[in-house]
């Protein structure tokens, strides 16, 4: 009995702490998926408009062109809203949705299918959506219990797919482009020119932003240990130049407030290699 108690206690504690701390620490590499961008130039156009017109005009312009699209998606989305929310960058939410996912698997499959065939124009998607949903539903009814393997597959697919939902992708791209342009246009980044071995001096700065675009706390350098290691003076210099850039360019108040959950935490990668040779 005691053992069982201890074991169950340990489990509970671990699960609860994970639930409280969230899992973002484990998933650092995920962002690369979002960086694979086969996407249309359209979104960038929107961004530049965004940057030029500032906050208020942007949402209007955005909404007007995609109005036709959004209703369609809204129609589609209602079933999987929990998934979307779960996969969104909100770190706190991450744990809870997992549990939900297991139970609501069929719904997940539907969005996955949608994403699998995303390269087709959006109008075609709805039809596939439906079929996907249907098949998923069918699966459930026929074999409710033995589908563990399928379930696992579904989970993986579900994650990738949800992230790359066209809307989120476009918004993400807009934000990426807007921040990049902001840093370049305002001459915030002074490249540490001519350092030996510039290839190895890529620095990632992790910044937390408030809804009005201000930095929360001081931005952090990924691998900040390297900054104090002997023989890594060039890295320290590069890291400090990147930190200066992020600080100098704050506040980032041009970012669309309605998408705050997308940009409340930003990883900004400074790569001096091309910057120097160019």
């Amino acid at each position, binding site marked *: 009995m005691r053992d069982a108690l201890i074991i169950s206690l340990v489990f509970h504690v671990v699960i609860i702490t994970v639930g409280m701390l969230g899992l973002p620490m484990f998933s650092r590499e995920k962002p690369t998926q979002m960086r694979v961008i086969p996407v249309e130039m359209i979104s960038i156009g929107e961004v530049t408009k965004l940057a030029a017109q500032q906050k208020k005009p942007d949402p209007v312009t955005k909404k007007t062109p995609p109005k036709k699209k959004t209703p369609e998606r809204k129609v589609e989305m209602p079933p999987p809203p929990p998934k979307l929310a779960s996969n969104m960058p909100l770190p706190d939410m991450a744990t809870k949705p997992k549990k939900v996912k297991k139970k609501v698997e069929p719904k997940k499959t539907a969005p996955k299918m949608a994403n699998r065939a995303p390269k087709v124009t959006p109008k075609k998607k709805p039809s596939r959506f439906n079929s996907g949903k249907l098949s998923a539903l069918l699966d459930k009814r026929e074999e409710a219990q033995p589908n563990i393997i399928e379930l696992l597959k579904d989970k993986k697919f579900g994650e990738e797919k949800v992230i790359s939902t066209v809307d989120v992708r476009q918004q993400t791209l807009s934000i990426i482009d807007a921040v990049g342009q902001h840093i370049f246009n305002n001459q915030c980044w*002074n490249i540490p020119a001519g350092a030996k071995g510039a290839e190895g001096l890529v620095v990632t700065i992790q910044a937390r932003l408030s809804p009005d675009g201000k930095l929360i706390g001081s931005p952090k350098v990924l691998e900040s240990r390297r900054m104090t290691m002997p023989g890594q003076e060039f890295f320290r210099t590069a890291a400090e130049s990147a930190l200066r850039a992020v600080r100098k360019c704050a506040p980032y108040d041009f970012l669309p407030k309605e998408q705050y959950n997308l940009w409340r935490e930003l990883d900004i990668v400074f790569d001096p290699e091309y910057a120097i040779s160019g």
Partner: protein
Amino acid sequence: MRLLKILKLVTAGFALLTFMATSPAAARIVVDVNRGHADPLPIAITDLVGSESDIVSGGSVKNYGQRIALVIKANLTRSGLFRSIDPEAFIKSGTIEENLRNPNFNNWKAIGAHALMNGSISLQEDGRLKVEFRLWDVLGTNQMTGLRYFTSPKNWRRIAHLISDAIYKRMTGESGYFDTRVVYISESGIATQRVKRLAIMDQDGHNHIFLTNGKNLVLTPRFSPTAQEITYLSYHNDDPRVYLYNIDSGKQEILGDFPGMTFAPRFSPDGNKVIMSQAYKGNSDIYVMELRTRKIQRLTSHTAIDTSPSYSPDSRFVTFNSDRGGSQQIYVMESSGKNIKRISFGKGRYSTPVWSPRGDLIAFTRQYKGKFYIGVMRPDGSGERLLSESFLDEGPTWSPNGRVIMFFRQQPYDDKGRGGETQLWTVDLTGYNERQMITPLDASDPAWSPLIR
């Protein structure tokens, strides 16, 4: 057994956890920034605060503080990596003490400064000056470095150079080159009767001294990388000979009496050997001499002219130029003389290769279509870049940190035989920051010292 069970369960639990942890994506947006500006970093350098009533030979302590700040500004600006903000723009507030210990970063940020240097200077009872400075990160609102020096007032310039080096090192991650000297050949007189004297000065042109009187022709001075010692070529009884000259003691000695003519001497990185060319029976080859034992080893034996040898900083390789391929080109070999490989393949002629003290590049002179260029390439011959171009650019020498190259430039003669002035110039690795050194007379063949210790 129980323990085993518990262990199993716990590991299973962790496996489950890691699965859970990796499965959902708490995605963060990643912004790639790969365009930036290579503008000089704006830095505010304030005068060192000192007492006006304390008088040292040459001025008040306050005055010394101002002069030191001026030298630091000039050094950093000349590097091309910093822009000193005009003191007119400084916003004044708070007491002197407050500003020294806890500067108002918002004021400095407002005028665009990324870094701030402040400090103080005071007279000690023993007649020495105490100089303190702090370097602040204005945007990060913290101190980056701070140092204190004691020195006699006449060494105030060196203190300024040492502070410049400390700032440079902290901001760029690379050691500085301001506390250094340059030897060169000072030239005067008409073209047919040039008087050439060995001269030495600080890296910024100050403290200029002539080392020789000009009776004997002096050529190709080279600094030892480890000591304040020079090797150079001088004509003795009409024979060119390699000499050693100790700057501190003024002692001069001839480096062996060789059967043929010796020239183009250069120290090994540890300062214990001199590598040079020797012409014997009409053929030039490369030799190296151990300074303690005076033992000589021959490195190349080829009918072509091999000259201008220079060691890599790890002493494993030697670069030199040779016309063995038909025209003058740059070669690299192991320091034993084996595995000779040609590395320059561009059009024109390549000469005077010099290995960078940081090892990543070889500087050279290139001659093509009637123009001269100073350039750099990697030791494997790739990545050739030309940094300067003129009627005649020659004789590159590296700053000890491998960031700046000094060379000499000669102006063309006009129809009436006027012109032909030679001056020293510096250019940094970007190729954009080219500056002339000021010397009292014409100048050629510079050699940069290591950091003074």
